[in-house]
């Protein structure tokens, strides 16, 4: 095979997600009453970017063949925290942002430590830590409220030069600062290797434990960035169980749409970002076609169901029935 074919095979999921997103967004903006304007793009970007951050977080963990069912709760916890801390003078705001991001890192590190060094199953461990994070969020915000530094919030949710949505630029920066260095580092490769075959990776002396730990920790950081941004959009903090759960669920949908394999070792955060944007756009399609908003949860659920069932097509390529059972 030529080099570009390898590249294409590896990026197929990402390109597919990109394609789905472009088609969906074209349908969306063509039928939007306001048309394809900077305003429409800004609103769509702001909604999509939130999910994109959480989906990136989920990707990091899914690549290691794990799953993090607490991302939505880290998101909620950091949202509540930001509504207390990210306020006041420039220095105070900066301090608040650092504390919020640090909390995210810590939450991720706790997950990682329990899963890797405690050797617990990721599903159960992260459901349990998710309960703890949600409890902490409730402690911080028993009732919705709080506020945020509005200058910073407006700056990061507005537009640069009147066209480019600022939240989108922020997403790009985070990709360049967090995802690209990670995926190219030794630990990033270790995370991929651990996901595709932990035994083989262990035998070849890959630092799988540190790779996985870093993946869980950075996942916490990315979820916290998402939590920070939701505070910028809403100006408040709210400890809502349903919303935290929904973000966890949607992050999995986005990851699947983005071509990341749930069995680990395959996919990229870029794909998950387009998966997240596509998922949000599909959900919003209902509004431009004037459906009752009541149908949205059902519609999103059905999309998720279809997306995860698509993976089953690989079964038709299985020649040996024993390969059904991993």
């Amino acid at each position: 095979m030529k080099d570009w074919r390898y590249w294409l095979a590896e990026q197929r999921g990402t390109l597919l997600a990109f394609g789905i997103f472009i088609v969906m967004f074209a349908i969306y903006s063509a039928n939007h009453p306001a048309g394809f304007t900077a305003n429409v793009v800004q609103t769509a970007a702001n909604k999509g970017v939130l999910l994109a951050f959480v989906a990136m977080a989920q990707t990091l963990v899914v690549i290691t063949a794990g799953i993090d069912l607490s991302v939505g709760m880290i998101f909620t916890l950091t949202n509540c925290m930001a509504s207390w801390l990210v306020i006041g003078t420039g220095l105070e705001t900066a301090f608040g942002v650092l504390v919020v991001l640090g909390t995210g890192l810590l939450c991720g590190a706790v997950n990682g430590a329990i899963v890797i060094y405690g050797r617990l199953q990721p599903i159960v461990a992260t459901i349990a830590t998710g309960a703890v994070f949600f409890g902490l969020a409730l402690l911080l915000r028993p009732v919705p409220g709080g506020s945020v530094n509005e200058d910073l919030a407006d700056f990061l949710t507005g537009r640069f030069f009147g066209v480019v949505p600022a939240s989108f630029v922020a997403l790009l920066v985070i990709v360049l600062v967090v995802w690209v260095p990670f995926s190219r580092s030794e630990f990033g490769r270790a995370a991929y290797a651990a996901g595709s075959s932990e035994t083989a990776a262990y035998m070849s002396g890959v630092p799988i434990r540190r790779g996985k730990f870093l993946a869980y920790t950075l996942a916490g950081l990315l979820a916290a960035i998402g939590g920070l941004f939701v505070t910028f959009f809403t100006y408040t903090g709210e400890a809502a169980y349903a919303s935290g759960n929904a973000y966890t669920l949607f992050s999995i949908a986005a990851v699947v749409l983005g071509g990341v394999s749930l069995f680990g070792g395959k996919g990229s955060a870029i794909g998950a970002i387009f998966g997240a944007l596509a998922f949000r756009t599909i959900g919003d399609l209902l509004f431009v076609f004037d459906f009752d908003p009541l149908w949205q949860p059902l519609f999103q659920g059905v999309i998720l169901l279809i997306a995860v069932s698509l993976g089953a097509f690989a079964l038709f390529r299985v020649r040996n029935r024993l390969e059904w059972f991993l």
Partner: protein
Amino acid sequence: MSETTLGGIAGRMPKFLRRADPAVITAFACIVILLLLGSLYSRSFLSPEYLLQQLKVASFLGVIATGMMLVILLGQIDLSVPWSVATGAMMACAAAAYGSVGVALAIPFGVLCGVAIGLVNGIGVAYLRIPSMIITLATNAVAQGLMVVYTGGFSPQDSATSAMRYLATGFTIPGVPNAVIIWALIGAATVFVLTRTSFGRAVYGIGNRERAAYLSGIDTRRIVLIAFAVSGGLSAFGGVLLAGYASKAAQSMGDAYLLPSIAAVVLGGTSILGGRGSYLGTVAGVILITLLQSILSVMQMPEAGRQIIYGVVIVAMLLLYGRAPASR
């Protein structure tokens, strides 16, 4: 297997203790400790009325955890519990709106809706080979969507029928709540199925190694499908009982049952990887979780604190005896 882990001490212990799973013993020991701690706080913790009341509350979780245990024994997980519970409850109450036939069929209809959710899960896991964690999350979302559409369009009938109330709160035998009898019956049936039938053997076999079970002639996919359908049905039945207990159905009534049902099964010594575990352990886990909840609420712990303690206790217990073997 416990003989080897307990080593030399086991030789001097009575036979029933030697055969018991250390996890089950730990769980029962924790129950005793919780009761003692509770009795220090208030004398009424050891009164028969209080204990019976706890058993009644535990039976709802017990019914739901039974289904969860079947699925976990297979090495899978059912995350569609919250909305299976809510769907069962809401559909049973909804059926009651259609005259006397509806009232008579309310409970079977609610359970059937849960079985339907379970069948979708089972087809996804067994035949499409989708990871159970993912497909059950998806069906949970679809069930939620269906219920939102159902309740949003018009004001639904949401009060429980008298039969549902009788099952959850009535007394057939004086002094023993019906809910406890139902849990005992379901538990006895589960023990029988798991230990005395080929289905039960197959469940343990698949949990240990599905490939080997398949090669020994078991139709593993059918067994998995049935187990998920039973789990969905039991979740919905738990929802029906809860609706009877609260005399109405509510949208978020199932949310509080996902983590406790998994926790109860895992704390009772059932391996989350499947293939190992006893129903006695699940009973212990259910009672343990219910007592913990009850003590926290008696101490007037706010919701936030309860969530934190819950999560911490589950992680701590799992670290004690739910760890995977070291990789090397």
